[in-house]
């Protein structure tokens, strides 16, 4: 079966500590639950989750969505946001994860990347170094999600095709965001218009698409 790999890069730096990390855990598990109610997604979607604060960790290696248990995501009480390092780890695993089409094996769909952060990269130089490399990986879509007033939309724009801005990382906003993510993941399986190319559904009200 052809896989649709979906990567999540989640900011677990100190500023997420408290209600935000709880909201993130809840919304993420709700999103996985929604995808597990969708037969197309169960058949094709594979998910990988990387968290980053002072260090980057693969908490879910690329797995089909009916095959893993979501661990609780935790964060330190303070510390930097090493987004660049997370991209560097992503670069490494995407290159080994993604299957190219061959005579004996079907190639994967273009992978999707969702990057969630509530701050700006502490390792700006590495971030800027990795940006063109990540872009060259041929992602189907790269969505950046900036939550709260401290996040840096402009930095995200350098990497992402779409940047959405959440005013707060509270439970209801995150829930809406991840609902929209699951719709974006499922978008390719729905009716296609006569004119348009496959894109993303418009975000809900509380989410502002940064142009």
């Amino acid at each position: 079966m052809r896989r649709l790999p979906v990567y999540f890069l989640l900011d677990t730096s100190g500023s997420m500590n408290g209600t935000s990390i709880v909201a993130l855990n809840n919304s993420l598990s709700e999103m996985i639950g929604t995808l597990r109610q969708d037969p197309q997604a169960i058949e094709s979607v594979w998910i990988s989750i990387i968290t980053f604060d002072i260090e980057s960790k693969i908490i879910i290696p690329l797995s089909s969505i009916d095959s893993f248990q979501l661990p609780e995501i935790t964060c330190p009480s303070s510390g930097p946001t090493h987004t660049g390092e997370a991209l560097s780890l992503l670069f490494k695993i995407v290159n080994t994860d993604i299957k190219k089409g061959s005579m004996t094996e079907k190639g994967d769909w273009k992978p999707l990347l969702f990057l969630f952060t509530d701050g700006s990269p502490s390792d700006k130089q590495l971030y800027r170094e990795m940006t063109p490399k990540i872009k060259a990986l041929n992602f189907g879509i790269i969505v950046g999600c900036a939550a709260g007033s401290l996040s840096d939309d402009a930095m995200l724009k350098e990497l992402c095709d779409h940047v959405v801005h959440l005013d707060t990382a509270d439970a209801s906003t995150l829930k809406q965001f991840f609902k929209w993510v699951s719709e974006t993941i499922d978008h390719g399986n729905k009716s296609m218009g006569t004119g348009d190319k496959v894109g993303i559904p418009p975000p809900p009200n509380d989410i502002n698409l940064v142009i």
Partner: protein
Amino acid sequence: MSSTVTVTSIIDTNKKYQYIDKGSPSAAGGMKDIYFSPDKSYVVAFYRAAQDFNSIERLKKIVTTYFDRFFNNPSGAYYKELYSWPIDVVKLDNRIGIIVPCYNSNFFFKKGYALNDALKGQDKEGKWFASPLFRVSSSKSKLDESELGNWLSYFQIGVNIARGVKRLHAAGLAHSDLSYKNVLIDPVSKTAAIIDIDGLVVPGLFPPDVIGTPDFIAPEVLSTLHLNIKDPNRKLPNIQTDKHALAVLIYMYLLYRHPLKGGKFFGGDIEADEEVKLAMGSKALFVEHPTDKSNQNLKREYGDNLQKFQPWTNLTKTPYTILGPYLKELFDQAFIKGLHNPNERPPASMWEQALIKTMDLKLQCANSRCDQKWFIYNDTNNTSCPFCNTRYNTSIPILDFYFQQSPGKWKPENQRLVVYNGTTLQLWHTDRNVITNENLTAAQKTPVGYFSFFNNKWVFVNQKLTSLVDKSENKEIKIGEMVELTSGKQLILSKEDGGRVAVISIANK
């Protein structure tokens, strides 16, 4: 915070509808956002894109003219169950929406997954029943057995879908987006509901605004996708593309695999979306093509699931010929002759009739634990279940039907009835003027007799036939009497106009 919003019909401004707005839609389709009414008896589905004059006119016509034409007549009640037909068009600010009644409760999972309750209450989108992933015992996403029905359920479901499409086409309309997303099915009650009717295409009057859903888009639509929409060579959904989607649906519900997905490799360094476009478009090839086997690279198609999905990924064990001769012929027409020749594709009415005739060839598997429970008689002397290989353990009487073309000249009907203990004989077997469609009355559906294995003999018991004659012995069989079935025996089932003769043979002795 949720609020209740009132919207007004654009057809009759006295008509108001309400929906609950929780800040975001309850569901989102490819084109529409969906909100439930307070009592959940209907939904308001708003189009995300602005609707032009033509689209609004089309919607108006669907909820008025076509609504009346479809439902305000004797077979209307049957079709009302089969479609989720929009009943009104509303406007709120600049957004256009439609009012669609919610579907029957049988289209929501009562149990869902076998292992947990995560699916309970979700709608039974057809996809759940079109892949081995949701039924093989080794799968974590297996549906509960109580949700799956048996193999025969899917023939009946196919009949219902075919009828729904037939009725649209008879009115000159194309659905334009048939897919397992837009057809809900319930294997328990053996019913189907066709949804997303609002995309109906009226040839020449209202052009389509969707090209369809992946897996169901016809080859000619995909292979001309690069052309401008005004280009005369660009192909868009119409009645012929519906016929393709219908054939794909029926194939998938019966064999749980896609008829064009065989893992064919087109060479070179090709992106996934380009490969799919070729495999479903200009280079589409039936996975079971009898001579061109280049699309039978199932290891490539299914990868690790090749073993897990047995027997459905084994074309030798479950070839489409296990569906019997009538369906084989139609699949040949749809996926070999008609795949790239839209005019050759079988119409919906032929699928309806072929599915019904095929159900007359059914046999119950002798293994009570067989997953499929039923199979189709394969016309050999070694009858066994193709799914679990269990040998069928009794002899099988077969009635081949003939009709009188001119006095004394009998011609075969290409229709037969395979008999097991308890098979019933129906009016549509004995009288060629009775056609098995949605217009059959309850009286026409009551059996005219039944078959039984009685005192070590196969017999037919006459319940309603007034002029049944055992022609071989020239003896009249009155109502309440029985006649033994022996090889070569001829029964005149009715002497009236359209009455058939049955010639009996005994197989699997």
